[in-house]
């Protein structure tokens, strides 16, 4: 079975380390905040200007003036700070954030990412993604392995306008966890019940498959 959005968030949360400052993008990345493992302290950075993002508010706590980068209502965690967007991007562009998680339309075997524009079609904008991929060393991209027509999103070369070139080293899809180096995708883990064959079939870029590909456990 392909991973659910929550399972994807849970898997990414396992990459968190104690003391990490982490930026979570819009969509599935935002869900990671709900799955920080026990015994680990992280500060979640939200690029609109919040370091130390807490869980969603209760009905009583909802505050229109307190949102995350996904424009969802949130709370502050203990030890949080709030600042301007310029300060926020100074942290990001200055390389102060330890881990960045963001979505994408395509990733290629060189580690380039396209996440912001489909020419002539969907106009969304890059938001903070270009800043994040330019500023962060440690980035995990999360997306479905293939589009709704079954076309692979893991390509030899991105076809859409880039968000950043040669900057992505890790990808979590609904089918697999992969690393990118030496111009190739490397299969590290697979979703429970998903066959290696299915992953090979849905990966258009060059894929290196080790003899044993462990299943993720949930």
């Amino acid at each position, binding site marked *: 079975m392909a991973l659910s959005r929550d399972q994807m968030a849970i898997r990414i949360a396992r990459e968190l380390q104690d003391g990490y400052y982490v930026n979570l993008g819009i969509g599935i990345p935002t869900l990671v905040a709900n799955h920080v493992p026990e015994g680990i302290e992280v500060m979640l950075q*939200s*690029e*609109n*200007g*919040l370091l130390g993002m807490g*869980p*969603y*508010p*209760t*009905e*009583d706590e*909802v*505050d*229109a*003036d*307190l*949102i*995350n980068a*996904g*424009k*969802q*209502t*949130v709370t*502050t965690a203990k030890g949080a700070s*709030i*600042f*301007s*967007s*310029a300060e*926020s*991007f100074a942290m*990001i*562009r200055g390389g102060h954030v330890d881990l960045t998680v963001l979505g994408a339309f395509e990733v290629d075997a060189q580690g380039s990412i396209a996440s*912001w*524009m489909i020419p*002539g079609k*969907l*106009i*969304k*904008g*890059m*938001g*903070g*993604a*270009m*800043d994040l991929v*330019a*500023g962060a060393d440690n980035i995990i991209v999360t997306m479905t392995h293939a589009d709704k027509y079954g076309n692979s999103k893991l390509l030899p070369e991105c076809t859409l*306008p*880039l*968000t*950043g*070139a*040669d900057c992505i080293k890790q990808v979590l899809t609904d089918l697999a966890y992969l690393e990118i180096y030496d111009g190739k995708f490397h299969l590290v883990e697979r979703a429970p019940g998903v066959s290696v064959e299915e992953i090979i079939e849905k990966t258009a870029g060059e894929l290196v498959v080790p003899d044993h590909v462990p299943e993720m456990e949930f």
Partner: protein
Amino acid sequence: MAGFDKVVNTYEEAMAGLEDGMTVISGGFGICGIPENLIKEIKKMGTKELTIVSNNCGCDGLGLGILLDDRQIKKMVSSYVGENKLFEEQLLSGVLEVELTPQGTLAEKMRAGGAGIPAFYTATGYGTDIAKGKDVREFNGRKYILEESVVGDFAIVKAWKADRYGNAIYRHTAQNFNPMAATAGKITVMEVEEIVEPGELDPAQIHTPGIYVDRLIQGTFEKRIEIRTVREG
């Protein structure tokens, strides 16, 4: 107005002097911390051919989105416009011009504009379409592109509290782009939830010093929520 007192009493006064073809920088992220009444006044004025510099363009029928109804906006400089169908329609049909700009670059364009810095180098966007035609320079083995700063004929911002001199404090993440926008207007208009007397706010807690603020008005705010997410209490 007398001395440092920036208070105006009507929204007509607040936006007086805005003309067709001007550039307006707006604070706000999504519909959080937006100068909603100043935007409504621009709609009422019917000013056309505006260039708006703002991270987003509101939603359909909300925030800056209401300026799309009567095609008052010629050009948007924004980082993310995903929540606005009318925006997308006008863009795809060529009615509206857009300069999509990375969020951090946009914040820095405003900050630099307000600080008298005409341009700056950043790694953001190098190797992508937005780098086309921009000067590239290498520092310490890494490539950077030259981005020009921005100054508005007007800047419109929303703060929580200000004293009559325009010393202002923002509330939570409604701060977002407002402090930079406030610095980058030839005329900066600020609306707030509460105006207090000078001396009532702690000087060390001021986010935007009054020197940046030309006109100040107290309003009431709808503060709609774009995406209401809650957990069980």
